[in-house]
């Protein structure tokens, strides 16, 4: 698993860790039952604060991606297909919003967009 943090990013560090571990889980790089590095080890290896790492893990646990076994460590939870679908839906919505935004700037109508979408789908 790679975790690449950027200090220049607008996204806070804990969110960057959260997103990257989540993506590793969704894409299958991390599999169900895999043990995650301990909070302290990850923090020290990434040279970031323990508090920040803990916050990322807490959010991953809250959202059901990982679970903690007291005294042992954190593990990847069973993939919840509902959860992943929800995640994808959210992303689609986000892209549609972007399309809307751009369409408005180019004066495209609702119909124009639907036509474009149909054409692209036919190509596939």
């Amino acid at each position, binding site marked *: 698993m790679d975790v690449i943090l950027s200090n220049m990013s607008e996204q806070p560090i804990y969110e960057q860790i959260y997103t990257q571990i989540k993506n590793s889980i969704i894409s299958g790089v991390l599999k169900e039952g895999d043990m995650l590095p301990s909070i*302290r080890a990850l923090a020290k290896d990434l040279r970031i*604060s323990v508090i920040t790492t803990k916050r990322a893990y807490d959010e991953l646990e809250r959202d059901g991606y990982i679970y903690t076994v007291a005294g042992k460590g954190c593990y990847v939870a069973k993939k919840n297909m509902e959860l992943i679908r929800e995640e994808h839906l959210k992303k689609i919505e986000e892209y549609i919003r972007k399309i809307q935004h751009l369409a408005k700037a180019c004066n495209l109508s609702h119909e124009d967009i639907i036509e474009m979408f149909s054409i692209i789908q036919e190509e596939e």
Partner: protein
Amino acid sequence: MNAIEINNLSKSYPGFELRDINLTLPTGAIMGLVGENGVGKSTTIKLIMNAISRDSGSVKVLGVDNLSGEFIAVKEDIGVVLDEAYFPEVLTPENVGKVMKNTYRNWDDECYYNFLNRFRLPEKKAFKDFSRGMKMKLAIAVAISHKPKLLILDEATSGLDPIVRDEILDIFNDFTRDETHSVLLSSHIVSDLEKICDYIAFIHNGKLLFCEEKDKLLEEYAIIKMSKDDFEKMPKEAVKGKKVSKYGVEVLVLKAAVSNTFSTEYTTLEDIILFLARGDMKQ
């Protein structure tokens, strides 16, 4: 348990005052103590070690009040490095090792020689012929080799070159891999502290301005550059510091209190501290 707990600590000398310092370093964390020269960082550290008498307040180190008799035993678990390393001039690192072995109960010779090796310190060279960097490294090797739970360092990285500083920061980072280990280090090189600290405590004009999680500071504050007209419209509670030039204003703001139509600059800990210190001076 907290590694260090300071409550309402005050100390004054003629022309110098440290008022009502409240500070907590949780076990397992690294805290950076920032402030200008002569602001009281070293005084705070001396007060923690009970090396000077206080006017009022209390200090607990590793769970023990530092005025109590038990504190002598606790000192075994504290490694202190001051801004100048003092060892007798004629002693070599080898001699120093022997002295320390008979001083500290938990002295670890292997660990000490590992550090001498890692720091490339000659075992048989007299202390007086050491460079400042080498002296500092020797002091740090000694401080860590008696297996402390708490490391306290006063300006341990100042006057050293960036490569050595980075090497030393790595050691502190590794030291706290053990969750029972904590570090308090004072420095005016804020970028060093930004690299490794979990908490930042900022002393200014004899007061503790804040003691906060580092990432929270970086998340909450931002610098925005704007025109003077825009600045007039800013909600006053959002502005924490400003720098006015002929052509515009640089403002340190609380992100949460500002609408996100402004684009924020990449803000470092150093920026935040500079702006806060300036803002405080004008009040």
